[in-house]
């Protein structure tokens, strides 16, 4: 009875001890070698411990111990094999590099340790595609806006020669043609801004707010100006003096061009 109890204790100790011991098992030049904590154990203690351990393992695991020749005395090779077997049975990968006397490092911190919500750490290809499309459209908006500014300025300047008594029809035609080009470019520019994908949850902040606010001035202005211009053109072509609401064409055009220029400046320069 006592013998059986001692065997059980020996078995339990063997299993517990096998955990740290097994991590010292390594492959080296086709032979398996165990470094039995020799750094801090004296030789006698080591041998004594190994003998006891081997005996305990032999009692607990008779089959694996038949790997070597069955002998009654302790052999280091059998001790090594037992340790390796226990390591494999536990599913513990054997270290590829020689173990050092230093204890293993705790794991380096991982992203999971930082506590970010999953939504903040996972990439979203769809969202990226939306941003790419938005940027692409706004780049076109930016280019076309700058291009539009050229005929717009030319239209305003040519307007000075299109009105009054001493104007020829050719200067009016030129002014009308420039105005038409400006209008076409302007609405194409606006299209790329209006239909650029919106990013949910974002609110306009900074200079872009002024840029967008100014659109409420030059947008209606760019609808009104050509209409008033056409009316003025007709009146002038009939030999009449420009009158009525058409007489506001010049003022509306100047305000529209001014708002448009300011809109460009608002996102181009830092105020």
């Amino acid at each position: 009875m006592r013998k059986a109890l001692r065997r059980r204790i020996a078995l339990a100790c063997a299993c517990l001890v096998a955990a740290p011991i097994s991590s010292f098992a390594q492959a080296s030049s086709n032979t398996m070698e165990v470094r039995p904590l020799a750094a801090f154990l004296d030789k006698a203690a080591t041998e004594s411990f190994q003998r006891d351990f081997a005996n305990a393992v032999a009692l607990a695991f008779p089959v694996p111990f038949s790997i070597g020749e069955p002998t009654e005395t302790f052999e280091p090779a059998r001790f090594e094999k037992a340790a390796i077997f226990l390591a494999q049975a536990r599913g513990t990968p054997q270290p590829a590099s020689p173990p050092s006397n230093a204890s293993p490092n705790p794991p380096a911190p991982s992203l999971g340790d930082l506590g970010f919500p999953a939504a903040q750490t996972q990439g979203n290809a769809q969202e990226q595609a939306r941003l790419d499309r938005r940027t692409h459209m706004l780049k076109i908006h930016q280019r076309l806006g700058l291009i539009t500014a050229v005929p717009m300025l030319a239209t305003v300047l040519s307007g000075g020669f299109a009105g009054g008594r001493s104007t020829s029809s050719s200067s009016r035609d030129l002014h009308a043609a420039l105005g038409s080009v400006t209008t076409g470019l302007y609405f194409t520019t606006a299209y790329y801004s209006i239909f650029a994908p919106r990013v949910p949850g974002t609110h306009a902040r900074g200079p872009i707010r002024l840029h967008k606010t100014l659109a409420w001035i030059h947008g209606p202005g760019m609808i009104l100006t050509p209409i008033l211009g056409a009316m003025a053109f007709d009146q002038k072509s009939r030999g009449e003096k420009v009158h009525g609401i058409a007489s506001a064409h010049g003022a509306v055009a100047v305000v529209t061009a001014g708002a448009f220029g300011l809109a460009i400046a608002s996102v181009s320069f830092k105020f």
Partner: protein
Amino acid sequence: MNAKLLSLLLLLPPLGHAADAQWVLQQSTLSYHVSHPLHQTEGVSHAAKGKGVCHNGQCDFLIAVPIKSFDSGDSNRDLHMLQATRGAQFPLVVVRTRVPEAAFKSPTIHADLEIEFAGQTAQYKQVPFQLTIQGNQAHLSGTIPATLADFKIDPPSLLGMAVKNDIPVRVDMKWQAQ
């Protein structure tokens, strides 16, 4: 004797995995600077999170910050930045470094940084940081000499002029020892 040995061996595994010290990022201000012929822009974030684990005289630090959290004061510019840096696909900037614990005694730390950003990883060697330790708190500040090219980011342009390649990132952090 054998009993003592067994006791010692049984104690070894838990001791082997114990960290000597841990650091947690308490407060941070990270700001990138972008230069354009017509603009000087700063984007600031206070949303970084970080952790440091020290063992055997070496400390492993991990700091991460969502790209979305950088605020330049212009929502349009921030969205462009997010697009240019592929921030929806790679939402975090992750910085890893290993610093010897002994370096904490010096007022200046030279750290080798590994930065993951925009789907690319770049290494910055010996980046100097100023360090002040008061009790359990450490205040760290410095500038990471990042560039757009390091992360294969096409320089955004305005009015046909591209921004400069250099985007230095100013770091100001308060760490708390646990």
